[in-house]
């Protein structure tokens, strides 16, 4: 961390002076880890039409937090991660075994998870307000240890991409074709949805439940407007997420609004621009 602080001290901002404002420096580093993470995952969320699913995962993450809090854990995040993993696995099992459209299955899961979360968190007349910070998120509260955890997750996602991106893409394009070429479609989909589950749950505290899904949709949605192949798609998504992340954090610092919301608004603006510039044909 000291190396990072020394690096940031070189920046010409008032908060970047040495010896103070560590929360802001931590937040900047966290954004530089979280945004690429979302930028990368975003490509496949959009490509395999899973944006509704990742939204539902956000809801289930909240329920996991409620369960964790109810059980009296110090770190309800871990309970939430486990709950989200189970949610992802169950969802994939049910989707595989039914002829129902997957958005219907997601709707069933999502509403159940939300209802369970609200039910548990308001049990015995408890107040819901302590969960409010989860809805908005606070990037400034991030601690160095958590940044390390996020960096580890980023490395794991990069490894996953390196090993199985091809299978993942083929599964999304045509499951039967992928299967005929030896791809284990079910496991590809399950591992990918579990990766989303972990990322959404772990970063929810800082990004905010209400806007987290936009970070999984907007970077790739805007990249899709311009890219003609997978490499361009990834690079554009990654750049959009990272630039918007940094810009959003700066904006929120100077005008004092939620960073997650500011990042999302930057991304939405970028989406509009790419939409107007979109490739034809």
């Amino acid at each position, binding site marked *: 961390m000291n190396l990072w602080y020394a690096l940031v001290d070189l920046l010409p901002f008032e908060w970047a002076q040495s010896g103070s404002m560590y929360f802001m420096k931590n937040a900047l580093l966290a954004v530089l880890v979280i945004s690429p993470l979302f930028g990368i995952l975003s*490509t496949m969320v959009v*490509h395999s039409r899973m944006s509704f699913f990742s939204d539902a995962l956000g809801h289930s993450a909240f329920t996991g937090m409620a369960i964790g809090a109810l059980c009296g854990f110090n770190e309800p995040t871990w309970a939430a991660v486990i709950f989200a993993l189970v949610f992802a696995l169950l969802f994939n099992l049910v989707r595989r075994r039914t002829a129902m459209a997957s958005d219907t299955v997601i709707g069933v899961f999502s509403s159940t998870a939300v209802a369970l979360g609200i039910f548990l968190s308001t049990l015995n007349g408890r107040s819901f307000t302590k969960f409010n910070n989860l809805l908005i998120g606070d990037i400034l509260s991030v601690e160095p240890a958590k940044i390390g955890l996020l960096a580890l997750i980023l490395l794991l996602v990069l490894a996953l*991409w*390196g*090993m199985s*991106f*091809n*299978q993942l*893409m*083929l599964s999304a*394009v*045509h499951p*039967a*074709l992928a*299967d*005929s*070429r030896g791809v284990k479609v079910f496991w590809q989909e399950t591992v990918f949805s579990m990766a989303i589950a972990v990322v959404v749950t772990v970063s929810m505290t800082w990004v905010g439940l209400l806007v987290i899904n936009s970070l999984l949709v907007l970077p790739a949605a805007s*990249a*899709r*407007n311009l*890219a*003609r*192949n*997978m*490499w*361009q*798609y*990834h690079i554009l998504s990654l750049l959009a997420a990272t630039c918007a992340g940094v810009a959003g954090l700066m904006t929120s610092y100077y005008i004092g609004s939620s960073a997650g919301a500011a990042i999302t608004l930057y991304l939405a603006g970028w989406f509009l621009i790419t939409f107007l510039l*979109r*490739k034809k*044909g």
Partner: protein
Amino acid sequence: MRQIKHGKLGGCSDSCCLKLEDVSVRLDGDDILKQVSFHLHCGEITALIGPNGAGKSTLFKSILGQMPHGGMITFSPAGGPAIRLSDGAVVGGQRPLVGYVPQSPVFDRGDPVSVLDFFTAATSKWPVCLPVPKRYRDKAAACLARVHGEELLDRPMGALSGGQLQRVLLALALEPVPHILILDEPLSGVDIEGEHQLLEMLDELRTQYDLSIFLSTHDFATLEQYADKVILLNKQVLKAGAPEEVLASPEFYETFHLKMGKGGGQK
């Protein structure tokens, strides 16, 4: 179109052969396939016809090993021992490769997947989220050359015409060169020119690689021009034989609710 009959109907002693014996599939209490038996020989084009819901795709899935089924599917290489496909029990020799050209895959016009991406993803371990190195590019180009589609390499998949997409999928199914090539309705969504090209290409491929080609179609008008054998399926094999024989059979007319007599070749 020139006559491209192979004329190897009958015995399978001296050629490789895919045998289906009493293949049955039941799903939720309904019979999807009932005791389907037939042989496919290499170097032959066999067309599978039948109404919608006749079990054509299920039959393909059974051969591909994606669908649990009763009965036996075995493959014998020329002069070699038989290999059971269903459970991969390889009784001496190598499991046959089945190339599969699926029915019209979904590509949105805006999907950022180039033909090169798609090809490299399916045939190599190189993650295509990174720029594709030249050696994979060359390999993809060589495979596309088999179907005269080199110029498609950098086109987005979603921008291809029906015929071009079929050619790319065909090139993919031929890498590595399979023993059996299965095409699920390759002629739907393809215009007359594309259809002609595709059929010429299939003929070229089977003579070049001596593979057996098994395709489903609703286009009966051109059957006699390219198919060595036609199988009429409606949950069970109603009629199998040379195209002119099947097309003139009472079973064919009954299945498609046609009146007997000339003039009704098309559904």
